[in-house]
């Protein structure tokens, strides 16, 4: 696909030189085109965020003006207002608590389970996977109502437990599914070698195999944190104002009339920074994580 302009062999030397020059020109043209396209793509994909980012630092009049102003004096008022005065910095902490707890729990119990799925003959393996996949792909709404009822009965609504447990509904399947594909990449002989060397099955898992999937575990963890951080519905329904994650609160700030855009944008920006950082940390593993491990990056 990349060699669209190859020099074809030709009869005479002169012809060859002319061909070469034409080829070089075409190649140069194509290279400029691809630079242009790259720049275009970068603009398309970065610009909206940057614009919204800047809105967080503009005053109300500046935002609402129909002229798009590129140079202005940034103000930290929105940031201060939304984070400190309104105390929404707590939302960020909530998101952190929920994400880290849910993901931590799922990693601790999910990684061994994934190993077991990879190494042991488990009855009904196919059915388990099918169920895992189904619930991963089901709309959050499906479980939202029953979870609300159940947590209500257990008097857990408004605590951190509810959103954490709710988040495991999509985190655990993801961890197991993806970690299993990582474990499948490790030859089973490594396990055998460690076991004949005197390590028990768990010892082989912990000392021989686990170090080999370290990068996989990191990737799964970071991905899961992103998904948990981004989650909206469970965070809205199962929490109180004190325990609500930031993603669940933002839509409530967007009203048909009188929305304080500056503050909302400032909050959204702050909420997005951790995720953006994680995305860049995950560069190599992005494809595998997104496609359920079906495709290797």
């Amino acid at each position, binding site marked *: *696909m990349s060699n669209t302009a190859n020099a074809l062999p030709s009869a005479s030397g002169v012809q060859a030189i002319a061909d070469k020059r034409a080829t070089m020109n075409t190649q140069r043209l194509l290279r400029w085109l*691809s630079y242009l396209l790259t720049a275009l*793509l970068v603009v398309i994909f*970065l610009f909206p*965020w940057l614009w919204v980012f800047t809105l967080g630092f503009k005053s109300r009049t500046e935002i609402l003006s129909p002229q798009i102003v590129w140079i202005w004096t940034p103000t930290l008022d929105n940031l201060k207002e939304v984070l400190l005065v309104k105390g929404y910095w707590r939302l960020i902490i909530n998101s952190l608590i929920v994400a880290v707890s849910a993901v931590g729990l799922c990693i601790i119990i999910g990684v061994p389970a994934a190993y077991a799925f990879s190494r042991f003959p488990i009855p009904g393996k196919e059915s388990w996977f099918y169920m895992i996949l189904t619930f991963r*792909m089901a709309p959050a709404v499906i479980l939202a109502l029953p979870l609300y009822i159940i947590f209500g009965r257990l008097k857990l609504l408004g605590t951190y437990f509810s959103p954490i447990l709710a988040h495991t509904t999509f985190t655990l399947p993801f961890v197991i599914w993806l970690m299993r594909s990582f474990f499948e990449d490790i030859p089973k002989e490594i396990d055998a070698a460690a076991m004949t060397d005197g390590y028990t099955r768990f010892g082989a898992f912990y000392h021989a195999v686990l170090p080999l999937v370290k990068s996989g575990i990191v990737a799964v963890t970071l991905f899961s944190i992103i998904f948990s951080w981004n989650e*909206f519905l469970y965070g809205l*329904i199962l929490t109180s104002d004190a325990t609500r994650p930031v993603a669940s609160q933002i839509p409530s700030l967007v009203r048909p009339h009188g929305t304080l855009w500056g503050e909302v944008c400032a909050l959204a920006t702050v909420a997005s920074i951790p995720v953006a950082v994680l995305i860049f940390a995950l560069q190599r593993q992005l494809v595998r994580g997104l496609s359920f491990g079906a*495709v290797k990056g």
Partner: protein
Amino acid sequence: MKKGYIWWWVLPSAILFLGIILVPFITAATYSFRALSFTDSTAQGQFVGLDNYRRLVFDKDFYNAFKVTFLYMIPAVAIQAILGMILGLVMSGAVRRARILVPIMLLPTLLTPVVIGLVGTLTLNPDFGVLGIPLNRSGLIKEAVLGSSTWALPAIILVDTYQWTPFVAVILLSGLLALPKEPYEAAQVDGANPLQTFFRVTMPLLWPYLVVAMLIRVIDAFRIFDIIWVMTRGGPGTTTEAVGIYAYRHMFRYWDMGYGSAMIMVLFLFISIMVEYLYKALTTWQGAGETA
């Protein structure tokens, strides 16, 4: 291998899974046969058999929700497939640049959906939005996009496409990079032009990746919620009320537990049928990506 040893590895996950997923599911199943609503004093949890399902069958809004979902899904997936393919092809030709591009392009996919919805809302705002202003001024769209019953759904499609096209592109890109060189060399020797090469060589080889990507997008289409919630709340009227929003309305605005539970059951059946295909695709083509 001692029998029963396996359980130590799997038990905690199994317990969590059953507790947090199966138990709610069964709860929903039982509630679907009862009438229970916080807003309807006659519905106190009595057993009503298939009444909820019957009501669902005659609920115009239910069909509307499906209609809206399909009206959004079909153009969205089609556009995303085509644009994703183009993007993927372009990037496969400039691999080094692609490496920097990929994380940037995946920002819409991985950043918080509600924030994307926010970006969409702001961009399309007719008073100060980057797209909204030109659309409004040029007279193309006379009203606020998100308040228009004709343009709200296309706006949703636009934002969804912005969010997910990179996902499709990246999957196809990794597929393209994993393709063997031999068929291309053979095509070159045979003198095929780029178009022929694309349709006869690339497409058949890339097909598994495309199928996986599109299946994921189709099933995901039923999960769409956050974007619509932020941008239109399902309005105006019910023009953007996709299945998830519709269910939310009955569950958490009308607090109709029985009816909502019946919806859950029906939706779940629907999803599991689709996942059947996705599962087959993923497990057959699990080897598709492993040529690299």
